[in-house]
């Protein structure tokens, strides 16, 4: 890619206000459509154009939904994700006990009327601990996903659009980060920043953004040569505008799909870090910690709830996000778009 010429230094915005005209395509316009819109994009019609697009939105969304709901697993995944998010947000109202409160007089108790999933090795209510764990998993999972995507998209777009040495530097940097096995790298980072939720998020973002950056760069490289971008440039749209308004919306689909898959990866990664003793502090009822502290009980009859419950929580969450990502991939793929 280094053989390609660098893009023209910032297309001059002289005279023509860089307003809406082509902004936006819902991701699927043909070059022809773009041209038409470009042609109609004379000053004064801007507002009308915007309105038309707005009114067209529900149609596109409905279109995506109609394709999404064909995938039954994806719908099931969406329901589960919604439930987990609900639990995460309303945790304090859903947990019968303080998830941190220990009771050394009643440890490793099997499920009962008082404790529907029993108690853990410190006598904490297992159900409350799991719901609290869901909140942690969502805060870390979604927080990490958002930050990785924001950082990744920014650097990916920059690399793909600017090309040249900027591209080379950013891509070599992502190569270095991607060369680290996720867990090893994350352990390293957590050792530097110390234990806690924030260091875990930082570690996972550091090793999570390169993938979205690479996806974004690939898309940007392809789109920057497309005719509608060429057209935008010809009428003087600035680089920032072209990237934000024309390239980003069209390039984001694969990144979104990846983002949903990555939530599952992040949830597992955090649990693994905590299982290994380098994630959250040891007294936080996090899913990986709950498994780690019951590791020795695996062969002790009558204590299955100790490890089975948190293990199932991780499995269900990861699968749910994977199903959603799978459904989204199909729904957002223009090649699968039905005639509408």
């Amino acid at each position, binding site marked *: 890619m280094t053989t390609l010429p660098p893009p023209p230094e910032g297309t001059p915005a002289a005279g023509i206000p860089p307003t809406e005209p082509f902004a936006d395509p819902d991701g699927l316009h043909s070059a022809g459509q773009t041209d038409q819109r470009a042609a109609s994009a004379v000053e004064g019609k801007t507002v009308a154009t915007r309105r038309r697009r707005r009114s067209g939105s529900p149609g596109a969304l409905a279109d995506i939904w109609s394709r999404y709901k064909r995938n039954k697993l994806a719908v099931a995944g969406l329901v589960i994700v919604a439930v987990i998010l609900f639990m995460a947000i309303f945790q*304090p109202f859903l947990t019968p006990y303080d998830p941190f409160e220990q009771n*050394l007089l009643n440890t490793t108790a099997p499920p009962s009327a008082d404790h529907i999933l029993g108690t853990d090795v*410190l006598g904490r209510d297992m159900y409350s601990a799991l719901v609290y764990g869901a909140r942690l998993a969502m805060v870390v999972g979604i927080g990490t996903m958002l930050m990785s995507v924001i950082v990744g998209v920014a650097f990916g777009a920059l690399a793909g659009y600017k090309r040249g040495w900027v591209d080379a530097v950013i891509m070599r940097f992502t190569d270095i980060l991607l060369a680290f096995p996720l867990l090893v790298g994350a352990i390293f980072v957590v050792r530097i920043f110390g234990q806690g939720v924030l260091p875990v998020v930082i570690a996972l973002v550091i090793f999570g953004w390169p993938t979205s950056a690479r996806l974004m760069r690939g898309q940007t490289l392809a789109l920057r040569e497309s005719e509608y971008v060429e057209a935008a440039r010809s009428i003087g749209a600035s680089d920032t505008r072209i990237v934000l308004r024309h390239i980003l919306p*069209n390039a984001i689909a694969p990144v979104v799909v990846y983002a949903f898959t990555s939530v599952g990866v992040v949830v597992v990664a955090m649990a693994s870090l905590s299982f*290994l003793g380098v994630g959250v502090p*040891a007294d936080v009822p996090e899913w990986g910690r709950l498994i780690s502290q019951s590791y020795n009980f695996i062969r002790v*009859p009558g204590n299955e709830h100790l490890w089975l419950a948190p293990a199932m929580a991780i499995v269900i969450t990861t699968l749910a996000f994977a199903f959603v990502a799978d459904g989204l991939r199909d729904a957002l793929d223009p090649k699968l778009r039905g005639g509408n």
Partner: protein
Amino acid sequence: MRRSRTGFAVVALGAAAAMVLTGCAQRSNQGAPEGGSAQPSVGYPETPPVEVVPGKPGGVFRLGITEPTAIDPYNVQESEGTSVANALFTGLVQVEPDGTVVPGVATDWSANDDCSQWTFNLKPNTHFHNGEVVDATSFKRGWERVAAPNSGSEVSYHLDVIQGYEEFQAGQAPEMTGVQVASANQLVVNLVQPDCEFPLRTNHPALSPAPAAVGPTSDPNYTDAPIGNGPFKMDGKWEHDKGIRLVRFEEYDAGPKAYLDAIEFTILNPQNGVQLETDGFKAGTFDWARMPTPLIGPNRAEFEPQGKWLSKKTNGINYFVAMNAEPPLNSPEARKAVSMAIDRAAIAEGVFKGAQAPADSIVPSLFPDAYQPGVCDACVYDPVKAKELAEKAGLTPGTEINLSFNTGAGHEEWTAAVRQQLEQNLGLKVNYQGVPFTDHLNNMEAKGASGLYRLAWGADYPTPGNYLIPLMATSSIKLDAEGKVTGNNYSRYSNPEFDALVARASATKDEAARNELWKEAERIAIGRDLAVIPLFQRQQFRLVDHSKWGNVNMDFNEDPTFDQIFLK
């Protein structure tokens, strides 16, 4: 695709809301469940020692261990290596499981007036496995092999009380001058300072004799099949990560011959070795087995009635290093407040399921003549008294205190319980931190360290002094140029009165008088000053079939007494 932003917004809002919403009224999770507590009482009882009776030759004793660091005395360190080395070698003296010292190769030993010079008379004409005679030179050879500049030994410090050790180890002297071969069967040892318990030290494998045919410490061909003088000899070489087989040494003449035909050590993966030992015992492939902590209760219920259970309080104390030199624990009141706010019994029952017993002293009950039950009067749970003491000491609610432990070694749960107790009972703000063991040590050693650090201590030699001196004597702080602690007194407790007492004890020949001095020293350092905070007494559990094997006891190193066991 612009709409996906809406999706992000919803998700972001959800995440934000999740972070904003905080706790509300919930049910109390306290007290025993209805229908009474199912928890065991604190600490499982010890099983009485098995009486040693004459046996008959025969039997192969099989057990699992993890890969030892070394079985050659030059670098034997952990329980596994010690187990093998003690079967292969017989030192000057031997220590019975109850702590009594009995002759090994030496028939008798005596000291000069101030215990700075020791004379050992050896049994004439005892033999190594290769037929060589064991004499005073063999011991000098063995000790110098360990202390040699390039030995690669990590345990040569056991010899550092002998004159000439430092010069010899630095390569400045051709021999260790403090070890003198007076005659073929008389060994004279000069010490750098009086030590009336020196013979106990010679029980460590590092002080074993070596034959003239000994190989260099750098040669695995030798160190994997060392030539010893003990009741058992190598059968082939140490198969790394697989096993070690020892057979009876038929010409053993330093003591009574062993009864067992052979000992088979199977080397197991440390990750799940303990579980495999239990599985092996149940399947009949092991004769002696450890077990994972959660299985101790169920195993006891199953095997104790069958006469296949061994339980013993052993050489070890789990304790908190309490940083004496830095606030907030720089006063005895503060340390006692913290100690009395910890409910050891509840942790022993709830978290350890009765597998550990609360400690009430730093010198464990393994030393019946020096053990003082309840010498640590602040080892009793008393939140009211704790609060009073805390107020006196300025340990007000909200005071920050470090609570540090090493990860991956099963300390997560009980330290989490301690954290909650300190927060609830004293209102302290606990900085709770788990780090890998090397970091944990570094943090403890560092200048300005404060708060509580969990640690365990087992004595190298069976004497109370090996608890008191390393953990609390001023001489064991050993600050380096940067102010780092390089000894074992991480608490930095320094009290001239205590130092004088332990020095006097070390130089006191009479055992009873010496034990009184040890006791007095502990009353000051633990009873009055609480230099360190004792938490739990180490207790060990084994599965072993007493109806099949006779004379099975657990020795000082928590290993079976191989030289006495016989097949019934």
